[in-house]
């Protein structure tokens, strides 16, 4: 594992991808490699791109890569697609929109499957961000799965979250319902060629202006609403994505200038510690309970109402935690 982290720190792409895979597959001792890496992280700007299925997130990400490369940034992309609950397999299709960057060594794209996680990203995303970070990517873009209701875990990992809305889906209401309003730092109105894009733009602007209780409002960041030109007009599209890039960077600068970055880092780091505690304390206990069939005996006690979950949990806790 030390060998692997050494290679990653030297910039070896395949080693980096393998490390991410070990994290996804929860291979024992992978954390040893992460111990080597953690101290060197925290340099990249992490950008989340989220929105409904098919909203155009990958297409935007592809153009955003160009915009950042033009500015001299290096880019890491983590593209998350859902795992099939039936087979455990996954069709990872985001990358097909980003093929033109395949041979650019300043761009590292990695597809991830959710592996059963419900929050719109996968459990390994936080750590995969660290891996991309030590590969010295200055911008790390995380494309979430198409979100529906409460899939907003991206907020725990990104500095800047861009929410993509498209006309014709009743998105503005949907966005409010789904709590996207609370996580958005920037709204993008996409697919400008479609009927209703202008209307959606105005409605979203209204919605943003009316809401005083969003997380940024109090701190003075006015959530911008950006109308991105249609991909069918490539030159205009590229220009408007450059404007999007500048807006994303402006938000990051805003966080830095107003001492808000540390707040976000604290949230991100707290989430990570939570994960690590969960993995280190609870996971082994659960494994133990499953291994010797104890879990079934406990469940039997519940089914016969011989006990209740709270007493059993307390019992387990007193056995394992001294």
């Amino acid at each position, binding site marked *: 594992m030390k060998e692997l982290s050494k290679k990653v720190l030297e910039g070896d792409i395949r080693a980096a991808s393998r490390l991410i895979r070990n994290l*996804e597959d929860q291979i024992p001792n992978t954390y040893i490699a992460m111990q080597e890496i953690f101290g060197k992280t925290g340099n990249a700007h992490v950008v989340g791109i989220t929105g409904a299925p098919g909203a155009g997130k990958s297409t935007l990400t592809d153009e955003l890569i160009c915009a950042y490369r033009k500015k001299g940034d290096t880019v890491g992309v983590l593209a998350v697609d859902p795992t099939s609950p039936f087979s455990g397999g996954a069709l990872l299709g985001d990358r097909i929109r980003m093929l033109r960057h395949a041979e650019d060594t300043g761009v590292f794209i990695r597809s991830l499957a959710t592996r059963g996680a419900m929050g719109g990203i996968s459990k390994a995303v936080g750590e995969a961000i660290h891996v991309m970070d030590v590969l010295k990517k200055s911008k790390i873009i995380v494309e979430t799965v198409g979100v529906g209701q409460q899939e907003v875990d991206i907020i725990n990992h990104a500095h800047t979250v861009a929410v993509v809305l498209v006309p014709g889906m009743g998105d503005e209401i949907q966005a409010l319902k789904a709590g996207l309003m609370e996580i958005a730092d920037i709204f993008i109105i996409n697919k400008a060629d479609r009927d209703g894009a202008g209307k959606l733009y105005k409605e979203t602007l209204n919605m943003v202006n009316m809401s005083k209780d969003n997380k940024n409002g109090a701190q003075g960041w006015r959530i911008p609403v950006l109308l991105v030109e249609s991909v069918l007009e490539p030159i205009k599209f590229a220009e408007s994505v450059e404007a999007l890039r500048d807006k994303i960077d402006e938000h990051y600068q805003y966080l830095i200038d107003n001492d808000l970055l540390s707040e976000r880092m604290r949230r991100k780091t707290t989430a990570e510690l939570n994960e690590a505690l969960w993995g280190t304390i609870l996971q082994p206990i659960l494994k133990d309970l499953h291994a010797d069939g104890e879990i079934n005996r406990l469940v039997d006690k519940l089914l016969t109402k011989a006990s209740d979950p709270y007493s059993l949990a307390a019992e387990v806790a007193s056995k394992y935690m001294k």
Partner: protein
Amino acid sequence: MSNRKIRVLLAKPGLDGHDRGARVIARCFRDAGFEVIYTGCHQTPEMIAAVALQEDVDVVGLSCLSGAHNYLFPQVAKLLQDKGANDITVIGGGIIPEKDMAGLYEAGIKEIFTPGATLDSLVEWINNNVNPKE
């Protein structure tokens, strides 16, 4: 470790633009429990090799109907070997004449599937011949 998932890159190098067959295979692989990175048509061997490394796949599945397989397949295998990725299994499919097979195996293609092959036989071959990385 049983958590290991087999990762497969499916790509169509070359100029022919029909990818219906490849899409069907991609879905079938997903249903077999593999993680499939599907990248569609018109790719150069260089692009395919770069993507295979970035995605840390166990298998690269190439499909070609244009007749250029004698160049494209070995080229992908060679680029992967050059990058030290000999452990990635390269397989191919398409309309491949019997006479070309020996040369392709020679070049490092591990198995060739012709249009008669069933989807099940593809999945079975991968399950039997590919060990996800340790």
